[in-house]
């Protein structure tokens, strides 16, 4: 009997994978639901004996079984999109059934945890430091140093918290890992728990990911005995983007409003319920089992460039022909990612802009596409890697509108704790509207009061409005408590710098 492998990843389901699977069952095949290879433009992807067909519809089933379908992509593992990758974190993508403990163990699962448990805490942490692993959530803080701090912090209880509140547009690596390889994340958390002496872990998943929540809950039941005495629980977010910020996430876990906390104290010293807490992103924790293999730390360190070590699961999204998950060592250029791997835009039109790092990331102009994927190179260009999401826009994009959207998004999602973010984002929307509409607004009655010595008494000109927007961005960038208000100026300023014509500069 033919065995057909079809993904049960949320994206494959959204593209109709269930219907295809049913059709193959009706045709007398055995269907195995596996994780996704990450070639999203080919979903639903059908695999028989290593060969692939996609994107498939119900009508293609007969032709695929007769091997006459023109949707064939040949051997999946040899596909250029897959062959060009260096998959460490996503080594199992497309190859295993997500909730099969047998599949997981047969592909090297639990080996990292087994070896970690034979190591003393300082030796284990030394290996994580040696690997050069940095936090994959966006800030890029060395993971080993964070663990060391928690291990050394005095406390009766310690916690491992996994930040799976993947709210950035253009990112889906956390979702794919949780749905496709949940045991891998759990193993990483169990290793972290052993390293710092924590007994309890929480995975905070956003409510927009019901499939990931279900998979993780099922996986935790199956793995309960294997990770004991460590216990772990899934907690579901409630639609607040700001809860991806670590201190806000901790407040949310405690059952409070998801407001950002001032730092210090760092979560490593006083985190969840005031106890020392390791809080890491899904991808950071999922990189750990590989690092803890014999020689794994040195292998991980051998990838990447300068201070950006290891591999990054990069997510190609938006208006791109070949979108999906591309894990590779740091050092690849944006040009290679967008044109050689991504195949340019999905619409076939020229690329106008690329946003890297989610809604708070800068818009990069095609002139900047030689920038290499590296934390420091991006921050030198006033941009950020963030969570590794790349959103491509074609030449129909209105950058002024996108800059406005960045402010609008910040206003909608601000936790309200600090003034630059709460008020600044709303004033930013109004200001961009004035700049773009060139609307003749009457002089502000408050600004006209005699005690407002510094306020302009006349109607601001276009240039004065732009200067005001610059000032506002600076206030938000340096005056906000967290990255939401602090990084919202990145998309705004970059759009203003590279595409002034979209703000009405040419007229």
């Amino acid at each position: 009997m033919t065995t057909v492998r079809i993904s049960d990843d949320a994206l494959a389901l959204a593209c109709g994978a269930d219907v295809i699977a049913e059709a193959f069952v009706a045709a007398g095949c055995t269907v195995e639901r596996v994780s996704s290879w990450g070639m999203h433009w080919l979903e639903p992807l059908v695999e028989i004996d290593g060969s692939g067909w996609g994107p498939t519809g119900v009508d293609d089933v007969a032709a695929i079984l007769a091997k006459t379908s023109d949707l064939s992509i040949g051997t999946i593992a040899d596909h250029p999109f897959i062959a060009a990758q260096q998959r460490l974190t996503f080594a199992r993508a497309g190859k295993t059934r997500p909730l099969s403990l047998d599949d997981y163990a047969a592909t090297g699962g639990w080996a990292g945890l087994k070896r970690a448990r034979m190591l003393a805490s300082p030796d284990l942490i030394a290996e994580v430091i040696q690997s050069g692993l940095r936090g994959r959530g966006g800030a890029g803080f060395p993971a080993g140093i964070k663990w060391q701090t928690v291990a050394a912090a005095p406390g009766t209880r310690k916690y491992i918290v996994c930040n799976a509140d993947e709210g950035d547009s253009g990112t889906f690596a956390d979702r794919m890992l949780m749905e496709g390889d949940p045991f891998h994340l759990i193993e990483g958390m169990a290793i972290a728990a052993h390293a710092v002496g924590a007994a309890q872990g929480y995975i905070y998943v956003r409510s927009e990911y019901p499939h990931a929540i279900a998979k993780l809950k099922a996986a935790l039941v199956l793995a309960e005995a294997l990770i004991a005495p460590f216990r772990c629980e899934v907690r579901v977010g409630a639609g607040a983007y700001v809860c991806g910020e670590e201190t806000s996430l901790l407040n949310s876990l405690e059952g409070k409003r998801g407001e950002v906390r001032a730092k210090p104290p760092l979560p490593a010293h006083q985190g969840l319920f005031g106890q020392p807490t390791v809080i890491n992103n899904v991808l950071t924790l999922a990189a750990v089992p590989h690092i803890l293999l014999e020689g794994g730390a040195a292998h991980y360190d051998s990838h990447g460039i300068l201070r950006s070590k290891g591999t990054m699961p990069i997510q190609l999204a938006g208006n791109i022909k070949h979108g999906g998950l591309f894990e590779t060592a740091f050092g690849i250029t944006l040009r290679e990612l967008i044109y050689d791997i991504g195949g340019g835009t999905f619409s076939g039109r020229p690329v106008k802009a690329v946003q890297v790092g989610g809604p708070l990331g800068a818009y990069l102009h095609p002139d900047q596409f030689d920038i290499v994927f590296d934390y420091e190179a991006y921050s030198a260009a006033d941009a950020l890697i963030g969570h590794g999401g790349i959103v491509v826009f074609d030449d129909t994009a209105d950058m002024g509108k996108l800059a406005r959207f960045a402010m609008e998004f910040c206003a909608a999602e601000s936790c309200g704790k600090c003034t630059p973010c709460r008020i600044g984002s709303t004033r930013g929307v109004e200001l961009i509207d004035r700049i773009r509409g060139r609307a003749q607004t009457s002089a502000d009655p408050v600004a006209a009061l005699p005690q407002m010595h510094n306020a302009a008494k006349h109607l601001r000109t276009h240039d004065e409005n732009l200067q005001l927007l610059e000032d506002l961005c600076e206030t938000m960038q340096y005056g906000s408590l967290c990255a939401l208000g602090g990084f919202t100026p990145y998309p705004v300023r970059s759009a203003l710098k590279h595409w002034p014509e979209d703000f009405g500069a040419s007229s």
Partner: protein
Amino acid sequence: MTGEERLTEICAAHRGREGPLLPILHDVQSAFGCVDPAAERVIANALNLSRAEVHGVVSFYHDFTAEADPRPAIELCRAEACQARGVEALVEAAEHAAGERVRIKTVYCLGLCSAGPAARIGSQLHARLDRAALLELVQSA
């Protein structure tokens, strides 16, 4: 079972957990379609919190609502990646077709960014939406 009994039961089910408020609110929202002031009072009593504290949490998160909305809801992603794939051009037609019968709710990101525009109805996901496909979703909702 009365509403209050059901609420007490939900609160009791989460007793002993660390930070039980959000799990309780999720269960209440899914059982009643909302977390109204009466429910806030019961939850506050059960957790020994003030009503203001519970209300503060309920009003902070987008997922909790003070009033139930019985209409079917389509959550349409309008974040950057879906904008890049043209979701904005579909919004007006979808809202027109939805009228008062269906609620079109904006969400920011369903994690299907390489295959947008995307939408969600409950746990049912839909990707690569064009005008016709989205209108069909609205009509069959």
